[in-house]
């Protein structure tokens, strides 16, 4: 079994690539700004006698959701950039030939890479999302317990992107795959907005389109679910949800859809890459 070797190699490669460095630097700067913003904001809110402590905490909750939303976006980009050329691109460059000629199954290459990307994203999301949650908890002295569910859900969202990008990469070239993944990714974002608008307008068709997009690419739906975990049902839930999440939190079905989505995309990647001629 060599899948762990491929996974380790993928992880090392990810660290070597500038994109990870860029994402890390971006995140560190972002975390610093975030911390400063939360601190200043909370201080102002506290000094304002008209704001109750509950309202202040809720407003900070909105800040946390916004921060995590940005982080989720960076993670999504990272997921796409890491995996979009992972199979086809390497095949075209010829860097996979010597490796695939070793006693390694094609499936081990696909799954090893997937595991490597996932681990990479898990570390990235785990560390930075936790840092944000802790920052808010320390500054405000309040913590919504379910917040800790947000990072794993964000990771799940990124994993569906990795699965999609790897499925594409098992069949088509990096550029075409990039276009495909980004198109679906933005469509899902837009459809997510449509879904919110649909709720406000009470429009069933728009709503169905939104839900459908969540099945085609559950990334955004999983994010909405993550975002919903940050709310303690207080006064500003709606404000928070309207900007970054969902007015109605996605149901548990989202998780199932996410898992199925991943199974299908990985299945496509395994099958197509297993048959592909070098």
């Amino acid at each position: 079994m060599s899948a762990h070797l491929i996974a380790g190699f993928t992880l090392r490669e990810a660290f070597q690539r500038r994109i990870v460095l860029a994402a890390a630097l971006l995140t560190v700067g972002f975390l610093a700004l975030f911390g400063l913003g939360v601190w200043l904001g909370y201080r102002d809110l506290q000094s304002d006698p008209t704001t109750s402590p509950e309202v202040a905490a809720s407003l900070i909750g909105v800040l946390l959701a916004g921060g995590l939303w940005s982080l989720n976006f960076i993670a999504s980009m990272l997921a796409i950039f890491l995996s979009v050329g992972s199979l086809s691109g390497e095949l075209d460059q010829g860097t996979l030939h010597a490796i695939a000629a070793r006693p390694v199954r094609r499936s081990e290459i696909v799954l090893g890479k997937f595991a490597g990307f996932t681990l990479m994203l898990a570390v990235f999301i785990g560390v930075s999302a936790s840092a944000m949650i802790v920052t808010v908890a320390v500054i405000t002295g309040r913590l919504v317990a379910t917040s800790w569910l947000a990072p794993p859900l964000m990771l799940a969202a990124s994993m569906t992107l990795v699965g999609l990008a790897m499925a594409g990469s098992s069949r088509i070239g990096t550029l075409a795959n990039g276009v495909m993944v980004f198109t679906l990714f933005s469509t899902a974002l837009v459809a997510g907005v449509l879904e919110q608008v649909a709720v406000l307008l009470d429009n069933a068709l728009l709503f169905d389109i939104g839900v459908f997009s969540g099945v085609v690419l559950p990334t955004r739906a999983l994010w909405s679910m993550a975002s919903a975990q940050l709310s303690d049902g207080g006064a500003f839930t709606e404000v928070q949800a309207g900007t970054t999440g969902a007015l109605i939190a996605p149901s548990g079905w989202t998780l199932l859809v996410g898992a199925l989505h991943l199974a299908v995309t990985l299945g496509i990647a395994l099958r197509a890459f297993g048959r592909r001629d070098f």
Partner: protein
Amino acid sequence: MTAATPEPAIQVTDVTKRYGGILAVDRVSLTAAAGEVFGFLGPNGAGKSTIVKLVLGLASATSGNIQVLGRPAGSLEVRARIGYLPETFRFHEWLTAAQLLQFHARLARVPARRRAGRTAELLDLVGLGARANERLSTFSKGMMQRVGLAQALIGDPQLVILDEPTSALDPIGRREVRDLIRGLRRQGVTVFLNSHLLSEVERVCDRVAIINRGRVVAQGALSELLETQEVDVRAGPGAAEAARRALSAEAAASAGAAAASGEDAGRSGEAAAHDVQVTADGRLRIRAASDAQVAAVVRRLVEAGVPVYDVRPVGDSLEDLFVRVAETGDA
């Protein structure tokens, strides 16, 4: 020496590979015996790399059968015993030379205690000992190809497959690779060498197959192939017919003799059909398997009452054979 080994290192039987509409390999059969250096020669686009990929299981054949080290091509047990230098010799450039070899040592299941030693040894062997800890991104193409060679040898393979291993090397590098291949042969390692460079093949290979447009057009011991004689004959009317008959008779006779002595009779037998061509100026171009055959054909022509005015050798080196193959698609 090779005759003592029962199973061939590579046995390709009637293999065809299509890429969509492109027929890359057309009913190829070839055998590389264990312990020999086998040269696979052909012009660009002939199908050499395709065959190698089929042998490694990197691509799957449209039809036919491939056995490698006694097992079906592509099986993991077999791959563990093969070293491969791809034609592109591209590796992840963020690795150092030593890291690349260590990674491949692990993939090739080299025991942990031997990895570091083997890595250092092989980098020395290919002349990169001093640059072991430099990143591949700083390497020239030639150095990359050398590191690729070391990579191919890291698993102490029984079979080494080299696809154009000297394409990026200077003459000194080429000589070093030839010496390296000879060293492998001394250790009993089978080497399958893809090349479009005659000199390379001529100097190190025991046996050769020549491929053109997906078809193997000649195969055999180098000495045997070089024995093939081509002569230009100016003769009287009816010469072409008589020469064809004479050649078939000779081929049949030598095939019978070869079969009796247990050798591979296929080559001389099947070649007869297209061994006589009429050139534009009315001369006959006759190809025979040996000097003796040339003599026999001329004798038969004379016996048949065809006047022979002039017999001239056309060429007899591997290069002639190769150029002929490349130009006409026929050996």
